[in-house]
């Protein structure tokens, strides 16, 4: 399980720079750059093992909070591999600052500009024009998450859970955590 590596100062800088670059390419979410992170961290630099990479993504997806935290876990694991908790903390900070600083700065400036110019025809056309697309995108994202990379008919109970959840949340005001808990229980007892 352990995978000892040596990280020089220059290595940490290149980790930061790589994430700074990926931040601006992450249109549609940080997860869209995961394949490139795998190439960089696992295949090219050998800072992480393949199971460590997969576990970072899986844990962040299962945990509460934004999924971008998988990036923090990658930094954490690189630091652990390099020698301990303080380096792991350094890895978290560099990875998160790298993936967030450029995109959040750009988004903040764009949002401010858009808000100041909200009466411009172009700004209104953009925001309203995107509305049907982004609403349908949410429905489609749920569909993709529920069915996985390939349609496997064996997974029909999972599709049923997703579909029932969608209808219940759409039509009732039940607290979302009850539904997540129900999903966990059904899974734990092997029912889905």
């Amino acid at each position, binding site marked *: 399980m352990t995978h000892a590596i040596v990280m020089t100062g220059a290595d940490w800088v290149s980790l930061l720079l790589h994430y700074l670059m990926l931040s601006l390419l992450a*249109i549609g*979410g940080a997860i*869209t750059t995961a394949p490139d992170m795998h190439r960089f961290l696992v295949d090219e630099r050998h800072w992480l093992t393949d199971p460590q990479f997969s*576990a970072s993504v899986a844990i962040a*997806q*299962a*945990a509460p*909070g*934004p999924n*971008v*935290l998988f990036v923090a*876990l990658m930094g*954490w694991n690189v630091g652990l591999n390099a020698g301990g908790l303080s380096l792991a903390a350094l890895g*978290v900070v560099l990875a*998160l600052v790298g*993936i967030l600083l*450029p*995109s*959040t700065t750009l*988004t*903040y400036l*764009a*949002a401010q500009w858009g*808000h100041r110019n909200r009466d411009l*025809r172009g700004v*209104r*056309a953009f*925001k*309203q*024009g*995107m*509305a*049907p*697309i*982004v*609403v*349908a*995108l*949410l*429905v*489609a*994202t*749920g*569909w993709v998450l*529920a069915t996985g990379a390939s349609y496997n008919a064996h997974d029909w109970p*999972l599709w049923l*859970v*997703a*579909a029932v*959840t969608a*209808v219940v949340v*759409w039509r009732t005001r039940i607290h*979302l955590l009850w539904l*997540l808990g*129900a*999903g966990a229980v059904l*899974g*734990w007892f092997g*029912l*889905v």
Partner: protein
Amino acid sequence: MTPLPAATATAGSGRAQPESLTDLFVSFTLLALQGFGGVLAVVQRELVERKRWMTREEFIEEWAVAQIMPGPNVVNLALMIGGRYFGLRGALVALAGMLTAPLVVVIVLALLYAHFADNPHLAAALRGMGAVAAGLITATGLKLLGALKQHPLGVPACIAFGVATFIGVAVLRLPLAWVLAALGGLSCWLTWHKLGAA
């Protein structure tokens, strides 16, 4: 940076807003900690339906921007909502609320994971929660459909764009950037003309 005026749409109708930076931080921390498998569904439920900080229409507009900009979408959304009420300070506070507590949780989970990674029940429970999380996102989309009724392009055109988007992303599995550029570009262009004619 100066804070932006919060009430851009018609006031009234029980419109609320965060009371303070602390309220903003706590609200986003609680949102993030409820968001298993994605925070967006919780953001919509809490900020639009319960706290009423924004209308459905405003939520869609902000989400469109958060989606089109690079970076994690819900992080962008938090930043924009915080910035709308308290300027740069609000943006940073919302961001910190969204990330701090979940970061601690995820690191603790990573430390525990090594011990429990082999438990098949745990893996199955996570699968079950994943299916629910997928349903939550779909439901968020379904609930926002109603906001398209007043759309300048009209309901039939919105349905056409929605169906095309769904086919592109869910059936053909095209890259998101293509779908956003092609269908989004066309829709914005048509909307632009419609707004000019009105």
